[in-house]
């Protein structure tokens, strides 16, 4: 990652991949704005990183649900004041729910769509539109292997991530002449609180390893990337299956 661009906005920074990313970027001396819902976790992380690294870390407690003009204004005012530029945008946030399965309530559907798609799309939209003002150097998004192969469980989550992927791909297209790299990571199993204790078909990757890859590759315009890489082949096979077989799968 280029040393010139040293300010990053991380959406979804309080735990898992977001926290690991904040820790690694702060060690590299980045100016960071950490955004998540829970203030106590953010403040603990920001204080720790300010004490133990050369990074300059600030935070903003913001709930991504019910995204509106006021929230958007708070976020970008804060980004302007504490970062100046947003040279690196990391959209890491993700939420799922036990009730994300049929019969699906409107409430669950709305809230998962807002947090996983609408709010990140609004943020990506503003940063893309104002890329010159923010001196944008890269956008990195964490999606999921659920996005390309939807199933009856986690359907709202998968749909939201697919929508986010579509929008960010559109942003990539819009900025293609500006040489701004985009990466959309379709993450497989990650060893976070969400997957902890689940019987998984493949080993989970640690948030620290994911963060390492995200940082290392953030200067490359990769588009959609599978992490770990072998998910590309698994998804390829799943997508190639005829519906008569796919509908019988339980995964």
């Amino acid at each position, binding site marked *: 990652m280029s040393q010139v661009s040293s300010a990053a906005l991380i959406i979804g920074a*309080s*735990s*898992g991949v977001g*926290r690991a990313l904040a820790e690694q970027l702060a060690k590299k001396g980045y100016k960071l704005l950490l955004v998540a819902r*829970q203030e*106590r*976790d953010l403040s*603990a*992380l920001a*204080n*720790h990183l300010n*004490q*133990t690294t050369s990074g300059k870390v600030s935070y903003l407690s913001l709930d991504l649900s019910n995204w509106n003009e006021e929230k958007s204004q708070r976020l970008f005012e804060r980004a302007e004041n504490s970062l100046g530029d947003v040279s690196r945008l990391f959209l890491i946030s993700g939420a799922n729910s036990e009730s994300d399965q049929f019969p699906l309530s409107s409430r669950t559907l709305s809230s998962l769509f807002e947090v996983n798609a609408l709010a990140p799309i609004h943020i990506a939209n503003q940063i893309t539109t104002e890329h010159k003002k923010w001196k944008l150097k890269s956008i990195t998004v964490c999606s999921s292997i659920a996005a390309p192969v939807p199933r009856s469980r986690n359907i709202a989550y998968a749909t939201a991530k697919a929508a986010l992927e579509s929008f960010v791909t559109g942003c990539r297209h819009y900025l293609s002449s500006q040489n701004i790299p985009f990466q959309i990571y379709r993450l497989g199993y990650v060893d*976070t*609180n*969400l*997957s*902890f*204790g*689940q019987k998984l078909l493949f080993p989970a990757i640690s948030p620290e390893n994911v963060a390492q890859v995200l940082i290392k590759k953030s200067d490359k315009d990769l588009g959609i990337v599978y992490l770990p890489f072998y998910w590309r082949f698994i998804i390829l096979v799943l997508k190639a299956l005829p519906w008569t077989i796919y509908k019988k799968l339980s995964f």
Partner: protein
Amino acid sequence: MSIESPPFPSSFSQLVSFDGTEKAEVWYTKPDRYHSLFSTLKTAEHFSIQGAGLSLPLASAAEGGITVSSEAFNRILSFDPENLEITVEPNLRVGDLLKFLLRRGYWFSPLPGHPNISIGGCIGFNIHGKSKGYFSQSIKSFMLYQPDHGELEVRQDNEHAFLFGLTLGGAGSTGFVTQVTLQIQELEGESLKKKKLPLANLWEAPEQLETLKTLHAQVYSWNDLTQKDRLSFGKGTLYCEDFSSAVTSTNSNDFTRLTAKNRGHVRPGSLLAPMMGRKINRAYSIKESLKETVETLDAFSGAFPISGNEIYFHLFGAKGYRESQLLIPLDNWKAFCDDLYLITQKALPDITLGSLKLFNETYDNYLNFTHKGVVLAINAVANPKTLSYFSELDKLVIRHQGLPNVYKDSRLSSDVIEQTYGERLHRFKRDLLQFDKRRRVQSAFLQRILK
């Protein structure tokens, strides 16, 4: 204890005590944010708390129960050099704390034996250092979360002061410590000067330790308890440590992330441990004799002599080892040594380590291993011979009006604790029950000692 899957992310796992002698299958959960921590603790009817999981007895698990890991809560929240204070989360490891402080010219004491021990563990067992002070003496305040009471600020001068004594040395029984403010000190020197003196036998040790303690910052000894000749039983080396301004060539402040699980992994030499009691003592004796009489170590290495020598723990393999720590009043020391010599020669246990230090402070707090006297620590291979030898040690400590360290010995019965701690045990049970009527925190350790 419930064995049904709890309604939060968890994995059914086997946890093992650091000494390898106790195991339990539990629902293990690792909340990574405060709100998930609090909702987990509220939801669980009973739970255990795990820090580094390095306690010798199984204090972080109860069979079929829920163990809540504090792993994610390992941050430095504030550092105030002007007031010599630092506020940290409970899973910060003492080695990481010391690294942070040393870089800025500060120090913290007392420190436990290994740098991977968590601050929460030091609180739970109110650890003592090599020879001076208890952890409680360096705590200014802490926040304690107990699901029935919420999050409480505990200081020695506020309405929750009673929780200070109950939590320090309470083995996690009062709830989850969410943050703690520690008193730090300015660093007196970049390095530690370690001076070695010969010690003839166990009987003479306290007098020498007492004289040296007035001259040095820390004094302790290594003793060979496998010697058969009475005149040399417990012979060894006295160590005197002081800060020094000398510059050292090493600066080894990184450390092994030792865990109870990886301690028991079979490694080269693991299977030899049962026959190595005497040989380990000989090897250590030769190693020490080859070193200079005065060594200068960087402050980190000096603080944690076992760091880098973890092979010692691995040698015991999966079967593990047992530790007994006894605090004997000075007046009874010689008679105790006479008896100890006799039972040791009779049992010929596989002792791998003997060590002494003096305690000068009286702080009779519940089950804390605190009083005036001589502290003798013994490590031995976990086998039936050691079990019967340690039972004899129980009789000796009762006879000589001493105290066993309940935090070190995983086979210590509630009977022996009753006979040695008496009223202190009753007060602990009564006050704990008064605070936590539902006894929400459970562990194999608490179940054994509060039986």
